[in-house]
């Protein structure tokens, strides 16, 4: 995906209806259920699941203004699950994931040597999470706000729209966040949880491999 440089104040990008988004091409990515049997050793019970991961497409627009990168996501979801009212209910969510190294495997959320960084939004939370993972089952959620990650979300006509925004360059190296730079190519992958379908953890839809992400100067 080409990520155009658009000279606008960062706050304008947070509006999914802003005119600037017309300058960014829509990426449409097919989603599929995660190959959950692959992680049977982490939960043979979860690995028995069959009906998860039914959201099959996500749309993405991405742009930057030289200081911040903004990712606009939207997908169809007939049920809005943004609160747990009963004990058997789950929450809608979406995440984008980036590799630290070219060897990081998106299927496993990286490994001990090749970690990944993800931005994770849940429909019941005001703030997103910044996630660091060294392989599936090792992920750690950090409060996104403390790491400069902001989100804007809305639900309309059976469709979620979620906007993530963060500085191209993260703060402290010790925080283990990915950095973006013009003319540098990295990768992105997508995941969606449908709370109405009891999606949670690895029970989700995902885009499979890394989509190339190229920031224009």
């Amino acid at each position, binding site marked *: 995906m080409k990520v155009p440089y658009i000279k606008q104040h960062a706050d304008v990008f947070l509006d999914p209806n802003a005119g600037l988004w017309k300058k960014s091409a829509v990426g449409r990515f097919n989603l599929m259920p995660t190959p959950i049997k692959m992680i049977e050793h982490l*939960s043979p*019970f979860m690995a028995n699941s069959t009906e998860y991961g039914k959201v099959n497409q996500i749309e993405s627009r991405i742009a930057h203004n030289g200081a911040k990168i903004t990712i606009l996501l939207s997908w169809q979801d007939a049920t809005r699950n943004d609160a747990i009212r009963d*004990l058997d209910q789950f929450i809608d969510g979406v995440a984008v994931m980036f590799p630290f190294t070219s060897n990081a495997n998106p299927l496993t959320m990286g490994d001990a040597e090749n970690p990944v960084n993800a931005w994770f939004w849940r429909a019941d939370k005001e703030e997103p999470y910044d996630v660091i993972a060294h392989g599936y089952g090792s992920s750690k959620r950090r409060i996104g706000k403390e790491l400069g990650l902001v989100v804007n979300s809305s639900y309309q006509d059976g469709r979620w729209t979620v906007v993530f925004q963060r500085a191209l360059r993260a703060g402290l190296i010790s925080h283990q966040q990915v950095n973006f730079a013009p003319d540098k190519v990295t990768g992105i992958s997508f995941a969606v949880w449908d709370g109405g379908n009891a999606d949670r953890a690895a029970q989700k839809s995902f885009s499979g491999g890394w989509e190339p992400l190229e920031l224009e100067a």
Partner: protein
Amino acid sequence: MKILNNTVPSKQQLMASDRQLATVIDLNKCMGCQSCVVACKNLWTEREDAHHMRWMSVATAPGSLYPRDFEKKGGGYDQQGNAQAGELPSMVDSGDAFTFNHQEVLYEGNAQSKKLEPTSALGGAPEWGYNWEEDQGKGEWPNPYFFYMPRKCNHCSQPACVDACSRNAIYKREDGIVLIDQDKCEGHRHCVAACPYKMIFFNPVTQKSEKCIECFPRIDQKIASACNRQCPGRTRAFGFLDDRNSLVYRLVEEFKVAIPLHPEYGTTPNVFYVPPMSPQAFDDNNELTDEMRIPDSVLEGYFGPGVHKALAILLAEREKKKQGEASELMDLLISRKWQDRFAEFTNHPV
């Protein structure tokens, strides 16, 4: 970038324990007073976000028990050790958390005109609740029957919850107590679905799962867990299963009269029950027979085929007592001194 070495523990590591604490409950003496339930609730779940949780429960058997119809909600393992799919109990299945119009009736001068009425935690009139079917039981006159089924976490030796948690947030302590690390739990509830006894409860406010902790802060001080200690019926024994001097060892391993609930669930539970010796049944002429009033099939349904041998031993020993002979087993079950029941866990709470 410096990579942190985040090793993921194996399930074997998480499930390993040096020893195993166990509880024995004598169903012949449980009178359904709910003292154990209240003792537990006062200590651990008397919280706004946990009113629906009963880590300790007593329900009437046969019946839907607690949580409602847990026996139909799957989980556990089949005979080949394969993980079985399970369902999540709802708020209502979990006994609900009623609120009452106390203010309106008791404090606003309406005591003569309005009734106290419960409201479900989900709003509206209750559909079902904790002890909804108390003392209903089964059977037709003149042979109705029921017994009480006290339940808590079994702290299983093969805990399906540990196996199910993709976050590896659940583990066994060295004394066999199964705990959920609240810092690691992300509320995915695979453990709730996997536990065939449905003894894990989701907290919708913290969005983490909770369960009986066997009062481990008390255990660490050699104080018996509250449910065990508070039982006025002297139904409880508690201690390490390998402690040959403990009452749990003697009842489970030596006399073999205490057996687990639903051993077929495949998790090797560590709460053991002395099965109920039911009253004799009446025949059509209202004469007592030698038949037990609780059908064998009912008891076998709960405790598996091992229940017959356990009952045979209990009945034979009781007969000895009736004939004026000595029975060490009956004396142990009578349990005159509370200290005899709890092995090394006889300190007082302070």
